[in-house]
Structure formats: structure tokens, C-alpha cells
């Protein structure tokens, strides 16, 4: 199947749309969840750090000389003591003239570095949150608060605490990892569910496809089976069309037959009357009437046959078992040619053969060929049917062979020309082979006439075959 046809298939469309929607939804969910989690963790982290800031603020004392003092022992968290532990405090001083000095006091964990001086103005007592770089270039969350003490009205003290953000990013990263994995698993499960849904949802279409294939292969005349309410109207309409087609062909046939009946009886009357007069008086008029009646009859036969052939569209869903048709015609031949004592032998194929077409057409083709063979046969007519091996679409071959005088090569080419009769002494219209050839052409078959081994004529009819029931029909996927 080509890429384009794949792209236009319903299955592909449904799956593609579902997949795109799923991926988008899951991505969005991932981003949202990750953001929420990050926010939450940050808030927790900030809250913890605010507590630390409060503690440091509470431990800030001033000695008699007005120098600030923070007793490291008073701060419980051991990380304050461990160098570069990721938790730091620092005290900055801003004098009344606006000059600032960073790191008047620092936590032991800052070792010999200090936190960068932050350039913003704080209202007294306000807490600010920043992010910045600390020792070893670690990303830090920085909280600061400005305090003023009554003893030193001009000086402003800024207490800064900072914590390493790697804790937060680590938690967020591991959360993201777990979440991505779960979302991926969810995606896989949803895609599987979508596949199942599409398969279940589209299964009626598959059934329809099989039913159509059955009709095409001629296993059924109509689409069989119950379909969902969305599809059933289409199926019903299609079946109606099939029925109507069959009906139209049948009606055309009946009308052709009725016309034949309506015309031929008066022609018979004319012919009998003319024959009687001709015998009695030898009248020129009678001779003319007789001649023209004969001509009219052949015209009627020819055009009716053509009309019938034209009415035979190759309707889908037709199959005709070869065996019964052949048997019926052989019964006719045995009865009609009984006086000539012609023995008809039918060698059937190993498997039942089915003609992919209309029963009456098959009857017409085989009937004319068999009748011809019986008319000319010395004593035997042999019919042999077989499937053509490896033909695609399947074909079958029917050989009809007589042991009569045969036709010489020069005449063989002329046989089947409209109304040509090589021997006027044998009754018939001479249209038989021409009609056979028309029908064979219509079905895309082939008729070959060749001299048979024993001196007679061998007619080989190659026709499209329908597959047998139960055989793999090659459902087009």
C-alpha cells in the first residue's frame, strides 16, 4: 500500500490524531506538574530559610562598644559551622552616609569568603528574597532583613542568610525523572488503549470490506451481515443498487424475449403463407416475402443477441457453477440430437468450477458451441473443463471437441463473421459463433477454434472463473 493511501486511511488518521493529542496533553501535564512541584519545594525551602533568618536575627546582640555579636554556639544547626556547607549567614552594616561594609560578621561556614553585597534598599524590618552566586559558584537562595537598633539610630544592619539551591534542584530533578517515567508509561498505555479502540471501532469496516470482497468474488449476491447504525444505511443502499442492477438486466432480457416473441409469430405466419403460395403457384411475391422473412429473422436474432449482450454489464457478485449448466445443455443435446446418435462425454475438472458471470450468458456460449459440435460430429463430442493454473484473475478453460469433418484453415478465419454460414444445409442462423464471440469478448475471455487431432474441430473457451467457497479470497486490506 502506498504511503498516500496509508495516510488517507481512517485507521491512520484516528491513530495519528489520538497520538498527537496524547503527547501534547501529557507534555502540558508534565510541565505544569513540574512547575507546581518546583514552586512548592521552593516555598518550603524559603520557609525553612526564613526560620533560620529569624533565629539569626534573634541571636544578634551588641556589646558595650556597640559592636555586633552573634554567638555561634547559640545557633543550633551544625551546618553553620561546617565550611561551605551550603547554609550561611552574614551581617552587613550600612552607615548613615550610605556606605556599606559587607561581612561585618559571617558564619564559620562562609570560611574566608563573603556573600556579595546586595544593592537594593530595604525598608526597616522587611525581608527580601534573592538568588545569587555564593562560594564555589553555588546557586544560592538569599534572604535578607534590615534591622535598626535603638542604641545606634544612624546605623542599619542587614542580616543575610543563604542556602544552597542544589538541594531544591536535586529534588525537582528527581521528581521530574520519576514523573517523566510515569507519564511515558501512561502514554504507552493510552496508545495501546487507542489502538484497541480504533481496532474495535473500525472492525465493522473490516467486515464490510470482507463482505464486499465476497460480492466481488461472487460468493454472495448482496452484502451480508449486520452493521452498526452509522454504516447500515450505506450497506442497505448498496444492496439496493445491486438488486436494481440485477433486476434491470433481467427486465431487459425479458423485454428482448417478449419482442422476439411478438415479432417471430407473425413472421412465422408470413413465412408459412408464402411457402404455401410458392408451392401452389410459384408466385414472385411469395418468393420475395419468403426471402425477406428469412432476412428479417436473421436481423432480429442478431440485434436481439446484441441487445442482450449490451444489457449484460459485468455485475459484481455473479458466479455460476459450470457443472449444472453443462449438464443441462448436455441433456438438451442428447435429446435433440438423439436421432444422430451422438455420444457426449463430459470430463469435469477435479474441483467444481465457477464462471464469474451470468448463468444465461454461460448457457448461451456453451450452448452454441455444443450445438455446433453436435451438428457436425460423426459420433462423439468431448467436453473437457479445467482451471487455468496460475492465472490471475482466475480463469477456466472449456474444450469442446467433435469428430466431424472440421473446418479447413482458410475457412477457420471466417468462422464467426456475422451471419456467415459455411454450410447452408444444416439448419441454424449462422449467428451462433458471432454471439459467442461477442459474449466472450464482453467477459474478457477468449475463443479459439483449431483443428482437432482426429480431424474434427476443437473449440476452446477461456473464461474468468470465480473462486470456490472457502478458498482464500485474498481480501484486499
Amino acid at each position, binding site marked *: 500500500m502506498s504511503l498516500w493511501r496509508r495516510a488517507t486511511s481512517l485507521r491512520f488518521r484516528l491513530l495519528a490524531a489520538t497520538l498527537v493529542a496524547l503527547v501534547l496533553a501529557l507534555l502540558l501535564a508534565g510541565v505544569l506538574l513540574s512547575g507546581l512541584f518546583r514552586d512548592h519545594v521552593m516555598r518550603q525551602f524559603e520557609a525553612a530559610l526564613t526560620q533560620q533568618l529569624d533565629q539569626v536575627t534573634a541571636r544578634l546582640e551588641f556589646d558595650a562598644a556597640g559592636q555586633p555579636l552573634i554567638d555561634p554556639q547559640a545557633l543550633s544547626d551544625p551546618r553553620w559551622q561546617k565550611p561551605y556547607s551550603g547554609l550561611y549567614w552574614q551581617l552587613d552594616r550600612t552607615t548613615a552616609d550610605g556606605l556599606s561594609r559587607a561581612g561585618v560578621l559571617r558564619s564559620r561556614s562562609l570560611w574566608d569568603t563573603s556573600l556579595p553585597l546586595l544593592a537594593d534598599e530595604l525598608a526597616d524590618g522587611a525581608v527580601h528574597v534573592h538568588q545569587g552566586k555564593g562560594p564555589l559558584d553555588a546557586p544560592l537562595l538569599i534572604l535578607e532583613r534590615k534591622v535598626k537598633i535603638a542604641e545606634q539610630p544612624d546605623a542599619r544592619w542587614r542580616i543575610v542568610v543563604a542556602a544552597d539551591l542544589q538541594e531544591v534542584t536535586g529534588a525537582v530533578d528527581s521528581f521530574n525523572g520519576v514523573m517523566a517515567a510515569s507519564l511515558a508509561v501512561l502514554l504507552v498505555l493510552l496508545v495501546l488503549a487507542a489502538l484497541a479502540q480504533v481496532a474495535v471501532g473500525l472492525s465493522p469496516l473490516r467486515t464490510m470490506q470482507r463482505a464486499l470482497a465476497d460480492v466481488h468474488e461472487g460468493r454472495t449476491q448482496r452484502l451480508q451481515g449486520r452493521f452498526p447504525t452509522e454504516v447500515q444505511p450505506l450497506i442497505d443502499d448498496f444492496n439496493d443498487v445491486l438488486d436494481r442492477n440485477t433486476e434491470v438486466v433481467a427486465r431487459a432480457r425479458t423485454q428482448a*424475449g417478449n419482442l*422476439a*416473441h*411478438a*415479432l*417471430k*409469430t*407473425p*413472421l*412465422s*405466419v*408470413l*413465412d*408459412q*403463407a408464402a*411457402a*404455401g403460395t410458392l408451392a401452389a403457384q410459384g408466385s414472385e411475391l411469395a418468393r420475395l416475402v419468403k426471402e425477406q*422473412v428469412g432476412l428479417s*429473422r436473421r436481423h432480429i*436474432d442478431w440485434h*436481439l443477441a446484441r441487445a*442482450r449482450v449490451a444489457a449484460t454489464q459485468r455485475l459484481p457478485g455473479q458466479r455460476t457453477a459450470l457443472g449444472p449448466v453443462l449438464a*443441462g*445443455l448436455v*441433456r*438438451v443435446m442428447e*435429446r*435433440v440430437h*438423439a*436421432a444422430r446418435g451422438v455420444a457426449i462425454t463430459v470430463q469435469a475438472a477435479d474441483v467444481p468450477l465457477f464462471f464469474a458471470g451470468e*448463468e*444465461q450468458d454461460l*448457457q*448461451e456460449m*456453451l*450452448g*452454441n458451441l455444443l450445438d455446433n459440435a453436435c451438428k457436425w460430429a460423426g459420433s462423439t463430442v468431448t467436453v473437457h473443463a479445467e482451471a487455468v493454473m496460475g492465472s490471475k484473475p482466475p480463469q477456466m478453460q472449456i474444450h469442446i471437441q467433435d469428430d466431424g469433418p472440421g473446418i479447413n484453415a482458410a475457412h477457420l478465419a471466417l468462422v464467426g463473421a456475422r451471419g456467415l454460414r459455411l454450410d447452408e444445409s444444416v*439448419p441454424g442462423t449462422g449467428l451462433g459463433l458471432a454471439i459467442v464471440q461477442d459474449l466472450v469478448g464482453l467477459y474478457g475471455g477468449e475463443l479459439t477454434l483449431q483443428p482437432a487431432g482426429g480431424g474434427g474441430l476443437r473449440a476452446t473457451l477461456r473464461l474468468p472463473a470465480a473462486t470456490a467457497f472457502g478458498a482464500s479470497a485474498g481480501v484486499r486490506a
Partner: protein
Amino acid sequence: MRILLVEDEPTLRAQLRAGLVDAGYAVDVADNGRDAHFLGATEAFDAVVLDLGLPVLDGLTVLKRWRDGGRTMPVLILTARDNWHDKVAGIDAGADDYLTKPFHMEELLARVRALIRRASGLASAVLQCGALALDTRSGRVTLAGQPVSLTSHEYKVLDYLMHRPGAVVSRTELTEHIYAQDFERDSNTIEVFVGRLRRKLPPELIETVRGLGYRLVPPP
């Protein structure tokens, strides 16, 4: 030989009847399926010429009913529908031969002759009994090669007897098969015809089986 002709078209019926009578057959006619069925089921016919397109009851149904009722006389069907489907249906309904309209009278007569001969189990168109020969195609009777002149009734009696070689044929049976239904039948006339035939042919040829009828005896 007595024939039932079933045809609904009056002119064609009259023509066919004339043709068959000219050929030496006693002809009964019917113009619809119901009458045809009744006649065929109750009267003895040597052959039936049956048109398929009939009013009241179509030809195929009539034929099927005859066959279902055990009537075995040969039937030639006339059909305007020149397709094999109808021919198969006709033969399967019990017809012995078919003829497609329009046809020549000679063709019809040839088919009827062949059917009657086949029904009697005779192969040749020329019936033989010793030196006596009857050509069913031309209606000529010869004795040792010399033509014998017969009236139409004499011919009918001889024709019927020659189709039943060696069989005893009753006077009633002879009457039934040489006269059409509407004819004034008198079995005594049969004796007259047989008497005339005995004068024209070797007298020992037609044997009288007392109380039963007549038998054609080939000379030893």
C-alpha cells in the same frame, strides 16, 4: 398418426394444421393451455406440437403436468425465445425437441416424423416389412420396388401398423390414431380400409387376431 397442435395465433395454427394434414396426419388443435392439457391428458396422440407462449396455462406447465401424469407421447416445443436457457427449461420439463420461430414447415414435419419414429424405436425414415417399404418423408409406399397407390386413409392405417411391427393393434386404437377428435368415428370403416389394403398388398401381410385386432406379419 394423430397429432395435437397447440398454438394460440389463429393464422399460424391454421397454416400448421393444413401442413400437418397435407403430410397425412390426423390433427387435433387447441388454442390455450387448459384445453391443450385436457386433450393431451385424455386422448391418445402420437406426437404433440406445443407452442410455449399460451394463454390461460403456459406451455411449460402443460408439458410438466402431462409428464407428471405419466403421458409419454413425444412433444416438440415451438418457442420464439431463442436462448439456451429456455431450451434447457423446455427439455427439462419433458420436451423431446424444440423449434425456434420462425421455421419452415418442412423442418417441422421432419422433426415430427423423427419424434414419432424415435418413440416407436425405429431408426430409419424408411419403414420396411419384407418387400413392403414406406418412406415416411415422402409418404411413398413401394412393394418390391414398385409404387403402390393408396388413399389417404389407407396410408394412415398402414403407416400406423408399420410403426408397430409385430404388435397387435386393436380397431379402437387404430380409430383413435387415424382420426382427429371432431371426426365422425366408425370402427367399421377400419375394416373397410384393411380390406382394401389386403387387396393392394400381399393378403397375408395383415393378420386378423380374432377379438383383438390386427397385426403386421413380415413374410418368413
